Structures are given as C-alpha cells and as structure tokens.
C-alpha cells in the first residue's frame, strides 16, 4: 500500500518543505500506483509519466538551490480530457477527436503550469461530458476504485477515480449538471463546482456553455480550496468570467449559528434509504456544532431535469457542430457521395461514425428544440423555468446560509445497469442539475459509506460566490469525521 499517494497535497507540500520527502518521491509513488491499478480502473486516456518524473526531478533541483516554489509545485495532477493541453492529446473521450492535439493551453492549464504542478495525464470521461457514469467513452468504461463492478460516476469519472485510487493527488473536472459532484460522491473524494464564471472556460471543450464550469477534485476540502485559488479568477479570454477577486479567508471550521436549509422536496421519494440516512447523519453532525436546521422549499426543482434537457442539448447541438471532419479530428475517409454536395456527405458520415449514441441523442434533441416552430415552445419556455429555479434559490437563501442535499439519489450503481434506460440515468442528476441552472457554487464531500462499503457524498450548495462558505462548512464536517481519509480496500 503506497500511503504517500493517498495523502492530500497540503500535507505532501509541507513534508517536502520539511525535507521529509522529495517531489520525485511523490511522483514516483503516484506513477507506481497508476501502473498497478489503471489496467483495472482505466482512469486515464493518455499519460505523460516520463515527462512528469522529469519535471519532479527538476523541481527537486530548484528546491535544493533554495528557489522559491509556489505552494502546489510538484503536486501530481490529473486533467479531464476535455481541457485543452498544448501539444498533448485532448480527445473528450470521443472518436471524433481521437487524434486532436490542441495548439494552445486552456487558461486553467496555463495557471497550473505557472504553479509548477505536474500533469500526470488526461482522464477518461463520458464523451463530451455527456453522461453520469463514464460509460459513454470511446476509450472504454472507467471502473470505480471502491468496487470495480460499479461506475465511478460521471462525466468526470476518470478524474475522481484517479484521485480515489491514488493515481493522482488532485484533478481537474468539469461540471455541467453534476459532472464533478456526482462522481466525487461515487468515489469518496471532494469535488467543487464553483460559481458560474469563477473559473475561466477558455480551453474547456464546450458541452453547454451556459452551464459548464471547471472545478477542483481533491482528497479534502483544504486541497479543493488551494486548487480553486490557483485555477480561478477573471480571464479576459472568457467574456462570461467574473471580474471579481477569489476568497482568501482561512478555513476555520467555525460554523456555529449558520443556518442550513433542507429542501423538503429533496429528501422525499425516490431516494435510497441509506443515502437518506447518511445525509441526515451529516446534518446531525452540523447541528451538534451549533448550526440551525431549517426546512426550505424549492418548488420548481421538479422541473429542473426537464429544463436541463432542453437547455443543455440546444447549446450542445451548436457547440458540437464544428466536429465535421473538415479541419481536424476524425474524418471518414470512405464516405459515399449521395447528393449534390459531397462535402455534406463527408460531414454526415464523419459525424455518424465519430459520435457515440448518447452524444447523437443530445445533438438530435437540441437540433429539434431549436427548430423553427419549436424554439418558443421549448427553448424560450425552458429559459423562463430556469429563471424560476434561480429565483427559488434566491428566495431560499434569504432565510438560510447553505442548502444541504444528497448528491445522487443512490450509491454507485453497477456498470451497464442504466445504459439502456437514458431517462433513468438523466433523473439521477436531479440534485445536482438545479445548481448549474442557477449558476451557484456547490460541493460534494465524502459523507459516509453503505454496508457494502460504497461511498455516499453530501452536497452543500452556497450563495453565489460563497465558495469559502461551503468549503468551510465542509471543513467543519471533515474535522468531525474521517470518511475523507478512507481509501478503497486493496490499495
């Protein structure tokens, strides 16, 4: 058991500064773990192990020379494969981008490089981030490190599995409808979806532009906070990024008197009793610390999945239009000329063969709802409902500081269990989707385990820009529990 690769970054950094460890030690351990486990887990699509080790050695030399290094320097990081890395494959887990090497770095990658963090590789995901199980990948399913028969959640399942399995210390994910939080819950790691606009989307391959947000995946709340402070902030390349400073306060765990709102709609039917029990226990923990528990209502929440499945596919159908085989990526070399326009034939066959079925389903959904005669009935109506959902939260936050909910109605499910029933899969995102529609920050923290030792996360939703608040509430819970320290057995 390689303990080292299961320690959080802040602990590792301290040990290096104290001279107890070298950067090379950390990266070597993480690589060893990856090589031992990833054949079974399949968290990574591509790896850069030699380069990572080189970088670690060079950082050790810098440190020996007495150079000042940034606080997360030398920490092995996994990057979701929908975040562009210059000169390094970025596939979105899709055949259509199986060979795409971006000529530029995403803003977050530039920031990571400046911090001198070490990128271990690019992680598996649902194709174009469309899915909740990492089963929709051209590069195969990722397995949950806690139970290989089960899914790691999705779409950032590769990133959360990598962190959970000690194949990375931290990771970047993206969250459009729960894609960081739900796999964080399934893999028992900490996953933060920041306020929309907190982190630049420049270089994040777009799924649904008005919902997408990059966020940190980490072992604990402190690490998530550290990583947020590195990747966040205003970016002139992203017109939707917020020109506001990031929070700087220290995590204290002082939460006495804070009011936690529990939406009555969220703990009713359709939830696995064990999940319900774990969330209720978590609430007890906070209550004992002096938090005030209050029932609130989010009446339009029941429309959120329907709303999401109009807004997201509409944007996706347009965002994914560029994958046509003309300029880059996969092109079907042997298309048949059927009509007057061979270029359109080429595009059609390229897209037919390049996209997986879930992506095609959503492109068709979006194309249909944007079509003449349906735009008003679907798209515009969905936008109106979206406003109502947002207003629900605004109202609720007038009487509470945080909203606590489950992340997913169930613990990790079996691979293949839901693939044939997309609607069931869609409904499993009921607790995470409203947060994206409202643009709010939310975190999933390890909340406990079922009898089968399957992880269950707890979601804290905050007011706009209150990442600090939700992290601090999470920190308080973490100080009282040890779920975040547990590692999958057999590791």
């Amino acid at each position, binding site marked *: 058991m390689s303990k080292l690769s299961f320690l959080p970054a802040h602990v590792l950094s301290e040990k290096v500064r104290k001279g107890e460890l070298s950067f090379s030690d950390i990266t070597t351990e993480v690589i060893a773990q990856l090589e031992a486990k990833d054949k079974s887990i399949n968290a990574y699509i591509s790896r850069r192990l030699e380069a990572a080790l080189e970088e670690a050695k060079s950082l050790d030399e810098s440190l020996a020379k007495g150079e000042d290094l940034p606080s997360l320097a030398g920490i092995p990081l996994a990057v979701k494969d*929908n*975040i*562009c890395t210059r000169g390094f494959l*970025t596939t*979105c887990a899709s055949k259509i*981008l199986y060979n*795409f090497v*971006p*000529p*530029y770095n*995403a803003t977050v990658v530039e920031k990571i490089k400046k911090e001198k963090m070490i990128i271990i590789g690019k992680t598996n995901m649902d194709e174009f981030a469309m899915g909740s199980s990492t089963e929709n990948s051209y590069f195969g399913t990722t397995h949950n490190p806690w139970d290989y028969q089960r899914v790691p959640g999705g779409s950032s399942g590769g990133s959360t599995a990598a962190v959970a399995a000690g194949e990375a210390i931290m990771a970047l994910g993206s969250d459009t409808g729960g894609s960081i939080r739900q796999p964080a819950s399934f893999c028992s790691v900490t996953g933060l979806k920041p306020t929309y606009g907190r982190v630049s*989307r*420049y*270089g*994040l*391959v*777009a799924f*649904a*532009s*008005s919902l997408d947000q990059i966020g940190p995946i980490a072992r604990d709340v402190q690490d998530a906070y550290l990583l947020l402070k590195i990747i966040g902030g205003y970016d*002139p*390349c*992203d*017109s*939707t990024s917020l020109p506001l400073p990031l929070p700087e306060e220290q995590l204290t765990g002082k939460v006495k008197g804070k009011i936690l709102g529990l939406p009555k709609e969220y703990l009713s039917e359709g939830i696995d009793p064990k999940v319900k029990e774990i969330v209720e226990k978590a609430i007890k923990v906070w209550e004992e610390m002096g938090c005030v528990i209050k029932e609130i209502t989010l009446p339009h929440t029941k429309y959120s999945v329907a709303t999401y499945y109009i807004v997201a596919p*509409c*944007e996706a*159908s*347009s965002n994914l*239009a*560029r*994958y*046509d085989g*003309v*300029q*880059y990526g996969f092109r079907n070399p042997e298309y048949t000329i059927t009509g007057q326009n061979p*270029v*359109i034939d080429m*595009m059609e066959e390229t897209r037919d063969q390049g996209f997986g079925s879930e992506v095609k389903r959503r492109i068709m959904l979006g*194309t249909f709802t*944007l*079509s*003449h005669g349906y*735009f008003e009935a679907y*798209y515009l109506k969905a936008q109106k409902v979206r406003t109502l959902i947002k207003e629900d939260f605004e109202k609720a936050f007038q009487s509470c500081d945080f909203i606590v909910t489950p992340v997913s109605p169930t613990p990790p499910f079996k691979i293949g269990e839901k693939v044939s029933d997309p609607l069931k899969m869609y409904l499993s995102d009921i607790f995470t989707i409203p947060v994206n529609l409202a643009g709010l920050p939310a975190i999933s923290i390890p909340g406990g385990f079922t009898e089968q030792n399957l992880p269950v996360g707890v979601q804290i939703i905050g007011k706009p820009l209150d990442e600090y608040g939700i992290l601090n509430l999470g920190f308080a819970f973490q100080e009282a529990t040890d779920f975040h320290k547990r590692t999958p057995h057999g590791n």
Partner: protein
Amino acid sequence: MEIEPVIGLEIHTELSTQSKMFCSCSTRFGSSPNTQVCPVCLGLPGVLPVVNEEAVRIGIKTCLALNCKINKYTRFDRKNYYYPDLPKNYQISQQYIPIGVDGWVEFEVGEEVKRVRIHNIHLEEDAGKNVHEEGKNFSLVDLNRAGIPLLEIVTYPDMHSMEEVNSFMNELRNILIYIGASNCKMEEGHLRFEANVSVRRKGDEELGPKVEMKNLNSFRSVLQALEYEIERQGARLRRGEPIYQETRLWNEEKGESFTMRFKEEAQDYRYFPEPDIPPLEIGKTWIEEIKATLPELPLKKKKRFIEEYGLSKKEAGILVEEKEISCFFEEVVKICPQPRLVVNWIMGPLMRELNERGLTIGESKLTATKLARLLEMVKENLITQTNAKYCLHEIFDSGEEPERIVEKRGWKQVTDVEEIEKMVREAIQKNPRAVEDINKGKKTAFGFLIGQVMKLSQGKANPGKVREILERELGKC
C-alpha cells in the same frame, strides 16, 4: 400594363477595424491563405469569442449616421448552418436584439430627395473562403477572412427603380466612407449585397411574392441582377403566370439568375442567443461620445458647399462624391480663398493627374498647401495657366515645392510693364508687314504679333498685359 418593382437591399459591409470581430488576428487583405488565423477564428475546440469593442463602436456610429434607434442592450445570436468555410458551423450574428433599428437614409435622385428606411443594423462575423481549383477533385479552405467584422444593413423595400437603387447604394457607400466605418473597396469584397424584389401592377397596394437575390458583389451586379429579375417577374405577371417566393443566385458571367431554393425549402438557421457572450450594455455616455466624432455627412456637405462657396450642384456633387477630395478642397480654399479657381483645378488638371497615375490624393505627393500656393501664383499672374499645369505635373512627380519648380524652370511670368513694352516694340519693329496687315483690318495679324512677343519672352510674358500694351503701342503707330 405598367409594372412597379418593389426593392429592398441587405448590405454586408466589412468594417475597417485592425483586428477581427472576436479575436486579435489582423484583417489585412491579400495575405497568403491561413496566415491570419488563431485558435479562436479557426473555431478550435474550447475557444471563446471576445467582442471587438472597436467594431461595436463603428456599429453604433453607423446607426447614428443612418438615424437608427440604438438598443440599450444588444445581444449576439448563433446562426447555425453547415459549410466548410464556416469553422464552427455557426456564425455569430445578431438576430433578436440587433445593435440598431428603425433608421433611414436620404439621398438625391435627380432633383428629388428620397428616403429609404432601415429595418435594422447588426454585427456579425465573416466566413472564410472555399478555393476550388480547376480540374482538382478537392477544394481548399482559406480562413483569413473568417471572423472579420461585418455590419449588415437591412432596408425596407422602399425602392422602385434602378436609379433609386443606384443613388441609394452610392449614398450609403459614401456615408460609410465618411464616417470611417469601411473602406468600401469593392475589389476586396468590402461591400456585398443581397436584394429582395417583387413586382406589382402600378397603383396596387399589395406586394407580390418576394424573390431574394444572392451573390451580388458589385453595384453593377446588383443593377444587372435586379433588371434581369424585374424583367423576368414582369413578363410572368403580364402573361398571368404565377411568381414563386424563392431565393435565386446571380451568375455574373452568364448574366442570368437561377433558382437556389424555394420557400418550402427555406433553411432553418435555428437561431438562439450566443451563450458565450453576455448582452452588451450600450450606455448613453458612450453613444454621446461617439456622436461627437460623427463627421458632416455627404448630402449635408453638398448643400453647404453650394451655399458657402457658390459652387454649382454638379461641382459640389463631384467634390463630395469622394470624402478625401471634398476635404482637400476645403483645405486648399482655406489657404487660397478662391473656391471657383480651386474647384476648376481640382475637377480638371488634378483629377486628370490622379486618374492617369491611378492614385488617390492621400497616396500622391501633392498636398493642399502646395496646390494652394501654386494657385496663388496663378491668381497673381505670376505664372501662366499652361506652365502652372506643367508645374502641377512636376509636383506629382517629385513632390517639390511649387515655387522652387517655377524658379528652376524659369516660369516666373513677366508682368513688368517696361520689360513687356520693350519686347512689344521689338516685335513691331521686326514685323512691319504684320503691322501693315493690321492697319488694313486683318485681325489674324494681331494674334501673330502677340505670338511673337510671347516668343521673345520665352512664354513668360503675361498674355493679358501683352495684349494691352500691344494695342496701345499699335495705336501710336
């Protein structure tokens, strides 16, 4: 049956910004293919657009010049369609809340001032270019043009004749140049048109089915295509045949248009708000700021030239036709306050020089000061008209100061009475036969004597003075 055409235009104007609409790539024309591109205008995965503020500023300025209402919040939308020269397979445009609406342009048709209403003005990005080489079974794509800012001006169908369309296009082009919105170079595709046209029995209120004409890349093709289309629709109307609502493509070489698609096949662009660009707020202060930079527009300037300088309508029209010329005229008049002399020289020798050299004034070596000083010499009779023209030619060649050229060439006119008297007497003395002929009443001999005096002066004597003195001296004989 008298037929009345009903015509509206959509004008796509390439703006004169340094950089593209949503990235910082150059907009320079004529570079080798795909050298003015970046991840953003290539539409690579993950990129995001950032609005070029200069393009928005020009958009607002155009709205002000065309009397449009400016929307307080303007928004971009995506127009979705698949084409290889469109890297994202959607164009960022403005469908729902364009930058400006409900304006108008006034222009002269003969003696009348007409008005065409503007439906809306919106910003969008240009597409690239597909290059088809003869005999090759593939096409190439050049994306240098992809992302260059375009302003689309959409009129109401307020035009009813070719003259109106022609005058409107000229006026609009002039306005766009005057306000610095676009260089309007046709050969570089700065102005491209789409027209919609229907015909009806003159006097009818109801509009006929509308036909859209695409691929009109010059004033000439707009006029030819419209003429062809009005003829085609008119003939059908006369024969009682139906006219279909359709989109037709103009073929410049064949001088014909062809059906591209019928209404039923109309493309569905699935417009929706661009989620990557938040709505832009256009504040009152910004509008006022831009308003203050708005120059005098051509029609107004023309009126002023007539009133202020006493020019004819035609003269004022010619000067105003080119902003540069009209500004040059005023600069010259400021130094040499002889508007009539200046306008004659500009419309005559100056324009001839420019045409022959294929230059604009700005590109030439002539400056307003140089012309003004040359004309001052003409006015003061310090140089003959003919030598002044040679002098102008030399300024165009070398850019030298007019005084120096005149000096160097010895063109300074002799106006000294005594000196001319001397030469006149010499000519009379040497040509007694001519004097005799004059006394017999032979008018041509007088001209001959003047010629002799000019010859003696090597062309430098002031012809008026020579005539005056010769008459006086002959009277003495």
